[in-house]
């Protein structure tokens, strides 16, 4: 167990399995009438989000509160950062107030690693640049695991990740996590939306991946397509993008019933998914959000419980 969670690669396959098993326990807590346990009582978790985020920030804060941790939220726009204070000074100042964990989202690759160097507190990477988003990947794995009952791993599972992979921290971390779980991953995107160098299977034909009878893929992971990619000349227009890489009604109708449809949210309706997700039997997009809380509870507990208050009457892993 390490002090921080910065990337899936650092967690490794064993770490992924450990978090997912712990998430089962947390999911059980979340099903209770009063979904709150005192496991991290006395711990302080500070959310530092340098990018706008609703679901991830609320998900972490909910997770921390359900474990009875105290939470702080650092609002960048109201901070000394807007007066020119450096990231390092800001982090060191907050750390001096007594913080056990920073949950940090930053638009720059590597920022959580720098923060990890500057503080003895745990650091959870809640997304850095286009680089990594490990808790999203973990909640994705947990969602597949529970939806398909694959507790032993994902050997033989065929996963297609579709869309703007180049700019997606979700794609990078989720691909790494699927590999750690034993799945086969294919990236589906035009060359302009791929990193310059990559080692995944790749195709530009979503139809080939789905197959004529819809049985070619077990998980279809659709990424958010942003409008600015058109002005960067990465795709000609969204209509063409949707026709080539979107989940259109025709493609949705062809999918096998067991195929899971996933999306990290928020969805660009009519672009990457041109069907009402409610009409997709395999869509687990809402479950991804729900599972996010259990997984983030697992992560915070995993990082912070080792030195939890020994006088606590509720010690790991018994939450009863």
């Amino acid at each position, binding site marked *: 167990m390490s002090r921080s969670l910065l990337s899936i690669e650092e967690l490794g396959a064993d770490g992924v399995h450990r978090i997912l098993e712990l998430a089962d326990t947390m999911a059980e807590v979340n099903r209770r009438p009063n979904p709150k346990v005192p496991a991290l009582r006395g711990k302080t978790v500070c959310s530092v989000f340098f990018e706008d985020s609703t679901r991830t920030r609320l998900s972490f804060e909910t997770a921390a509160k359900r474990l009875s941790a105290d939470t702080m939220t650092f609002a960048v726009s109201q901070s000394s950062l807007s007066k020119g204070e*450096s*990231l*390092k000074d800001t982090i060191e100042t907050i750390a001096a107030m007594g913080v056990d964990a920073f949950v940090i989202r*930053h*638009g*720059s*690759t*590597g*920022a959580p*690693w*720098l923060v990890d160097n500057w503080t003895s507190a745990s650091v959870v990477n809640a997304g850095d*640049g*286009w*680089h*990594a988003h490990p808790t999203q990947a973990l909640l994705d794995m947990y969602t597949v695991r529970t939806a398909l009952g694959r507790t032993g791993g994902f050997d033989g599972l065929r996963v297609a990740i579709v869309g703007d992979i180049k*700019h*997606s*921290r979700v794609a*990078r971390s989720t691909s790494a996590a699927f590999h750690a779980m034993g799945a086969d991953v294919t990236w589906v995107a035009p060359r302009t939306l791929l*990193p*310059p*160098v*990559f080692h995944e299977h790749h195709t530009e034909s979503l139809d080939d991946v789905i197959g004529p009878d819809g049985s070619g893929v077990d998980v279809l992971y659709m990424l958010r397509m942003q409008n600015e990619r058109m002005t960067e000349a990465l795709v000609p227009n969204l209509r063409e993008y949707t026709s080539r890489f979107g989940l259109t009604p025709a493609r949705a109708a062809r999918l096998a019933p067991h195929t899971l449809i996933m999306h990290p949210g928020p969805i660009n309706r009519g672009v990457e998914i041109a069907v009402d997700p409610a009409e997709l039997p395999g869509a687990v997009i809402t479950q991804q959000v729900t599972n996010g809380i259990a997984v983030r509870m697992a992560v915070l507990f995993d990082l912070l419980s080792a030195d939890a208050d020994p006088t606590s009457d509720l010690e790991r892993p018994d939450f009863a």
Partner: protein
Amino acid sequence: MTDSTSLLITGANVIDATGERLADVRIADGTITDVATGLTAADGEHHIDAAGLTLTPGFVDLHTHLREPGKEEAETIETGSRAAAKGGYTAVVAMPNTDPTQDSVSVVDFVRRQGQLAGLCDVYPSGSITVGRQGTQLTPFGELSEAGVKLFTDDGNGVQDALLMRRAFEYAKGLGVTMAQHCEVEQLTGGAVMHEGDCCSHLGLPGWPSLAEELMVHRDIELVRLTGAPAHFLHLSTMKSVELVRAAKADGLPVTAEATPHHISLTDELLRSYSAIYKVNPPLRTMDDVTAVREGLRDGTIDAVATDHAPHVPESKEQPLDQAPPGMLGLETALGVCIAHLDMPLVDIVAALSWKPAAIAGIDDVHGRPVAVGEPANLTLFDADVSWEVVPAELASKSRNTPFVGVPLRGRTTHTILDGTLTVENGTPTR
């Protein structure tokens, strides 16, 4: 004849453009007065026992950012000159990306005068090719060359406009000056943080493709072919760039090139540390590129090692990769990096550090001269075999952004002599 200001160096392995030999060297009044064996020190004469050390013409850096005027918090002409002297340099060419830009006689005169006041090495200001380095209007090459400017560059930026660059070559040709290009087609590097390749793909960072450098190298070679004007290519970093320059030289074109110590020793993989200490422009490239640049130096395609010494205050480098400015220190570590990483005869390494850059800078009447009677005493004495590591607190530079802390280097300056005066003695600056 000796006097109280004279200096005798005995037992040194002397290397210069004429070759290598053991000799004693006497200096008086800024000039080499004796080169022989068996010289003995007279009463009152300063004597350096240089047995086991190498004596060469002083090093010349074609590419130093002294930051003054405008960024004195990172470096001043005095502190940068001290760092240069400590690294064995007796002359540096100061890059023009100051604030204000070195695009007028008044600014280049200021830089030169501050260098003279510091008195630690000769500071030769370069001029910018375009006013304010904005890439739109040529600077007054004639006035600036009359003020002693020999090298023109918009370093930090390449001149993007091909027509403007053609005019620069054409106009400057008759003035005996050289255009030095920072080769970067900016349309291909927008937002770039590091080399475009496997590592940037993994890190999710915008990449600086090799092609962006190579296209401008190719363009300028063709402009040289068209105009006949000389060009110098700054900090070459890619395999293909080296090949292009090699072919241009084979065609007899008047082109020269430099490589930095970091591009012969470090790769883009170091950015996986997320440390901006490794962020430079052009970026650190792959091992194949490093190998090609080393080979370019070995076969003479690349004429000179130039440091691209780029000081930054610590706070600016303690930022995420995309926010930190590019650049690293170079003056105090160049020799140690070169000997550690270049599989070349020592004479060729010294050539790339001394007389070849002196010729490119147009200062080879004073620097990079043979160690011979009557020549100006701008000299460097170093231990070619000593292994050492950088201690940040011991750096003479005002900044600390070197990637070589904790990295074994080989070869270190012990004494530097500028115009017959010791600026560094036993590794310590004398002022």
